[in-house]
């Protein structure tokens, strides 16, 4: 097991290098000039200041040199300084708790509703819940989720006034309900359908029949035999969806003005604030890799047939 974790961590090094490099290149390739963007379109900057700034941020160095310098910094935990002179690590430190709270809230909502609805639908196929879930998920899959976000904001925030429409001043859970729900809602249909399909596949398995033949109660059979095996693929999808949630957080935090990582990267792109974009981007990749590893370890726990030590 330990050997497997070490191997996986080593294997994630090239992935990390590749993705950070891609983000770095993408930011580098952005049109316009960061110094002008920083100063504002109308401002004139004296050539001396410009030269001084260019030199301080190494903007004249070749791309690879800049990248290596950045990586060296990253290696010792230095995310660098952005163009406003603010430490990127400070930007991240201020924003991450908000995003983690938002993503986890959304994640839990997604798991509860996705698995719950999928399980009820799968255990009673053809029933009322099943029909409703199938119809609702079809509709939801067809609607872009930012539409849901705006509609939710208007209906529950403005019309009914149940939840704040913007910011996090009211704290958790009140301020987080709307953004988390809009974030969760795009994962629920897929998750519910996967759960349902997986349960239908296992419902008539021989070992379920064997459990019936032992006179076990339907509840015990559903939980111990049907759900236990059906949730294996669901768990791996739930893990991977955390990455999607982090991506979705950029839009949702923008819409609801939640001061998290997504909001920070959102504004940084507008300001061509490269160091912040690359820093947060790398962090998201790192988190994603970590979650992936956890999911695979979970897989080994959930399914004893999977031997992690023998997998390449």
């Amino acid at each position, binding site marked *: 097991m330990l050997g497997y974790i070490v191997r996986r961590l080593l294997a994630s090094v090239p992935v990390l290098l590749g993705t950070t490099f891609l983000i770095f290149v993408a930011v580098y390739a952005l049109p316009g000039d960061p110094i002008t963007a920083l100063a504002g379109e109308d401002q004139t900057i004296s050539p001396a200041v410009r030269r001084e700034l260019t030199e301080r941020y190494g903007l004249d160095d070749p791309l690879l040199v800049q990248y290596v310098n950045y990586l060296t910094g990253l290696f010792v935990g230095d995310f660098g300084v952005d163009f406003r002179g603010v430490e990127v690590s400070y930007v991240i430190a201020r924003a991450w708790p908000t995003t983690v709270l938002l993503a986890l809230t959304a994640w839990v909502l997604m798991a509860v509703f996705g698995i719950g609805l999928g399980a009820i639908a799968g255990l009673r196929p053809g029933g009322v819940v099943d029909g409703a879930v199938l119809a609702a998920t079809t509709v939801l899959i067809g609607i872009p989720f930012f539409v849901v976000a705006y509609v939710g904001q208007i209906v529950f925030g403005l019309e009914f006034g149940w939840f704040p429409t913007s910011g996090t001043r009211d704290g958790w859970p009140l301020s987080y309900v709307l953004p988390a729900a809009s974030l969760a809602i795009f994962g629920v249909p897929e998750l519910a359908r996967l759960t349902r399909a997986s349960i239908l596949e296992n419902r008539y398995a021989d070992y379920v*029949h064997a459990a019936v033949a*032992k006179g*076990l109660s339907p509840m015990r059979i559903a939980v111990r035999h049907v759900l236990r095996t059906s949730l294996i693929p669901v768990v791996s999808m739930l893990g991977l969806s955390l990455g999607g949630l982090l991506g979705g957080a950029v839009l949702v935090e923008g819409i609801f003005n939640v001061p998290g990582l997504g909001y920070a990267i959102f504004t940084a792109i507008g300001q061509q604030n490269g160091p912040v974009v690359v820093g947060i981007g790398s962090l998201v990749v790192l988190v994603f890799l970590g979650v992936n590893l956890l999911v695979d370890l979970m897989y080994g726990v959930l*399914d*004893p047939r999977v031997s992690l030590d023998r997998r390449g």
Partner: protein
Amino acid sequence: MTSVQATTATTDLATPVVRVRDLSIEFATRSGRSTAVKKMDLDLHPGRTLAVLGESGSGKSATARAIMGVLPPGGSVTSGTVEVHGVDLLAMRPKEQRRVRGPVVGMVFQDAQSALNPVLPVGYQIAEGARAHRGMSRKAGRELAIDLLDRVGIADPRRAVDRFPHQFSGGMRQRVMIAGALAIDPEVLIADEPTTALDVTVQSQILQLMLDLRDERGLALMFITHDMGVVATIADEVLVMYDGHVLERGTRDQVLHAPEHAYTRALLESVPSADNRGRELPVVAAGVGRGEVVEVIEPESDVEVLSRPGNDVVVRAQGVGRDFSLASGGDWWRPGRAGRTTAVHEVDLTVHAGETLGVVGESGCGKSTLARMLTGGLAPTRGRVEVLGRDLSALTRGERLEVLRDVQLVHQDPSSSLDPRLSAGAAIAEPLVVHGVGDTASRRARVLELLDLVGLDPDHANRLPHQFSGGQRQRVEVARALALEPRLLVLDEPVSALDVSVQAQVVNLLMRLQRELDLAYVFISHDLGVVGHMSHRVLVMNGGRVVEEGPVAQIEDDPRHPYTSQLLAAVLRP
């Protein structure tokens, strides 16, 4: 009052634990409802075994599953009662049924691999019934599981209890399954073909275990099987089913030695063995029978019709063997430990025209690997294979293809080896197309000729595999193998997936084709009976080696190797 009680007590001994009356089961199909079981009666008595004998589709499994409430989707009981201790199980409420299914009547399923939950430890699965019904603690359940694992003959039960099903062999899994049914201490055990998927030596161990348990605990045993040998070993009473009807019932000796129904007789006679060696087998005309009317086609004559081998050597293998590498672990920067395993050590064999060489062995003995090497599908690691005197490894690709036309392989399961979207005619014509033989018209003529040769209606050339029965599909497979007029057929368990009566048809067909076409066969099987019936010589394999070789009579009557004796001892005869 006391006298009444006494009477009840004495009749209790004679009354069955389970009494099934008038049971009918239907299945919803696309073309309406079909009857699986029609007005079935049966009784199960303590300490006795009722064997329910029948072929696939006879309704024997449906009966068991209806009693246990696990009919497949679409199946339902349309009439009848299942009385357990005098109370109708089917009329009970679900909660009451659960106090009968499990605690009173337990079940062992055919395929322990799929009937055990792959993600739960076996100890948990053995104890869960007892824990649910007797409120046993987790710890007590574990001790019970350890006791039972020990009882069913699993070594080191304290460690085995925490293992998962995939860590056991097939026979061991079946023992685990039995332990799980016994944990709730039932009075009745229903076993649905529990040994069908097992090797013969393992099968006899499991049967012995079930008999011991029956006697030890006074279990009423209902044993579903299609195998006459199993019936002879385990049954007290026998019930013969066909197409949902009970055709015959009686004691084991009555049914096996003085069967009344023509179908039972045909079933018994159509089991191939060394006793009816080389004779044509009686055949049950499939699909004709309905209830009492089963058409049995008796053979025209009772003389041995085995072909006479010639002197031409068709295939010769010298010291042929094969290793496989086992990849374990490893990454792109660090290759894993590469292990090697030897599937076949060094095998010598020779087959002449018109001769059948039987290859017998249990699963994993290397017989299928040998088949693939003989047909050129797998290159040997060592040794050489000569087809009609030409060494396969010394030929160019083109020459090999040419030579291999003379060697064709017939697979075990025609329902997976035939393309479900390709008509029978197209499947049979495929080898002709691949080798560029003839034009469209001549190929068509050849296909019709081949269909006729294997006893299929040429009008059925356009049918798809699912429109044929299992036996007919295997005929299509044989016709395809014969398309290129080969000299040798390598038959890898060609009748193992078929019912006894259908098996008889295919065995008859193969023997007739051999006589007519002077074909050489390598007949691979785990079934000594079939091999003894139609082979000229036999080769016994174990652990990738040939342990014994000789004429059928010598192997059967005077085995030299202990493994051969062990195999023969495990064969169950009706």
